[in-house]
C-alpha cells in the first residue's frame, strides 16, 4: 500500500503540474452539474465528478491562466457597467428599429487596443459586443485592433464617440483584470513588448 511513497519525486511533480491547471475547469463543470441537478446527493456528487473529469479528458483544451490577479473592485465595476450597457444597448437598438428601420446608418471603425493577451482581448471584444451600438466584426489579434460595426453612426462625431466607448470598455477591463496576461501565444510575446508602450 505504500508503493506511491517510493515513486521518484520528480515524476510526482510532473504529474501535479500536468493535472493542476485543469482543476478549475473540473471544479466549474462539477458545480454546473450540481446546479443543474439541484441536489447534492451522493449519486449526483460522484456522477458529476466523473462526468467533469471525463469531459476535461475528452476535450483537451489549453489551460487558461489569467496571469494577473483580478481586482475585486474593478470586477464589480465591470459587472455594473455590463448591466447598464445591456439596458442602454437594447434601448438604442430598439429605438433604431422603431424610428429608422431600414434607413439606419452604420460604419465599421478601427479601434487600436492597448491590452495584450488572448484573454484580455476576448474580454474587451465580448464586452464591446454587449455595449450599446457596437458589434465586433473582426479581431486582429497580432496588431491588437478591433474592427467594430457601429449601428447608429450618423457622422464623424458619432464615430469618434463609438471609438471612445470601446476604449472606455478597454479601460474598465484593464482596471479589473490588468493590462497584460501571461498566456499570450509564443509568437506574439516579443513583438508585444516592442509595441506595448506606444500610446
Amino acid at each position, binding site marked *: 500500500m505504500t508503493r506511491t511513497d517510493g515513486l521518484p519525486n520528480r515524476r510526482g511533480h510532473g504529474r501535479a503540474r500536468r493535472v493542476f491547471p485543469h482543476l478549475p475547469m473540473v471544479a466549474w463543470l462539477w458545480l*454546473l452539474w450540481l*446546479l*443543474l441537478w*439541484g441536489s447534492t446527493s451522493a449519486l449526483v456528487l460522484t456522477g458529476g465528478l466523473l462526468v467533469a473529469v471525463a469531459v476535461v479528458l475528452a476535450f483537451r483544451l489549453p489551460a487558461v491562466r489569467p496571469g494577473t490577479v483580478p481586482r475585486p473592485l474593478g470586477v464589480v465595476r465591470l459587472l455594473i457597467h*455590463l448591466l447598464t450597457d*445591456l*439596458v442602454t*444597448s*437594447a434601448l*438604442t*437598438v*430598439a429605438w*433604431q*428599429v*422603431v424610428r429608422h*428601420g*431600414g434607413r*439606419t*446608418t*452604420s*460604419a*465599421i*471603425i*478601427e479601434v487600436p487596443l492597448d491590452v495584450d493577451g488572448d484573454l484580455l482581448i476576448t474580454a474587451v*471584444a*465580448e*464586452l464591446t*459586443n*454587449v455595449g*450599446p*451600438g457596437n*458589434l*465586433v*466584426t*473582426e*479581431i*486582429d489579434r*497580432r*496588431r491588437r485592433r478591433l*474592427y467594430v*460595426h457601429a*449601428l447608429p*453612426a*450618423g*457622422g464623424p462625431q*458619432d*464615430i469618434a464617440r463609438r471609438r471612445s466607448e470601446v476604449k472606455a470598455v478597454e479601460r474598465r477591463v484593464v482596471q479589473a483584470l490588468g493590462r497584460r496576461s501571461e498566456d499570450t501565444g509564443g509568437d506574439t510575446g*516579443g*513583438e508585444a513588448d516592442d509595441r506595448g508602450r506606444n500610446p
Partner: protein
Amino acid sequence: MTVVLDVITAVLFLGGASFCLLGALGLLRFPDTMSRLHAAAKAQTLGLLLILVGAAVQMSPNLAPVLLLVALFQLLTAPITSQIIGRTAYRTHGLERHLLLRDELADRLEHEGSPVHRRTDHSDRRERDDEDTEDTEDAEDAEDAEDAEDAEDAER
C-alpha cells in the same frame, strides 16, 4: 404580497416580451446581416433577461441558480456567436456597403492591396453570389499580406 409580486412579474414579462418583439422587428426591418445581428444580439438578450428575472420572482429560491445559469450562458454566448456571424457576413457580402458611413476594415485591406470588395455595390445579387468564392480567396490573400507586413515589422 402576492399581488405585488404578480405585478412585478407582469411588468417584467411584458417588458421582456416587447424587447424580444423589437428584436424580431429589427430582423425584418434592418437592411443587412450586420445590422440584424445588433437587433438579435442586444434587444433579444435584454428581453430574455427580463423574462428570467420575472420568472425568478415567482419561483422557489432553490431554482434561482438554474435561471442564473441560463442568463450567464446567454450573456457569454450571444456576443460570441454574433461576432462569428458578423465576421462571416463581412467576408461574404452580408453587408450593404453603400449604406456604411465609413469602412476602415476595407480601407486597411485595400491599403494592403487586397480589397474584399472589388465590384460596386449596385451589381445584382446573383452576380455577387458568384463572386463569393473568389472573395474568400481575397480574404485569405489579405491575411497573407498581413503576415508579410507583420514579418517586416518584426524585422524592424
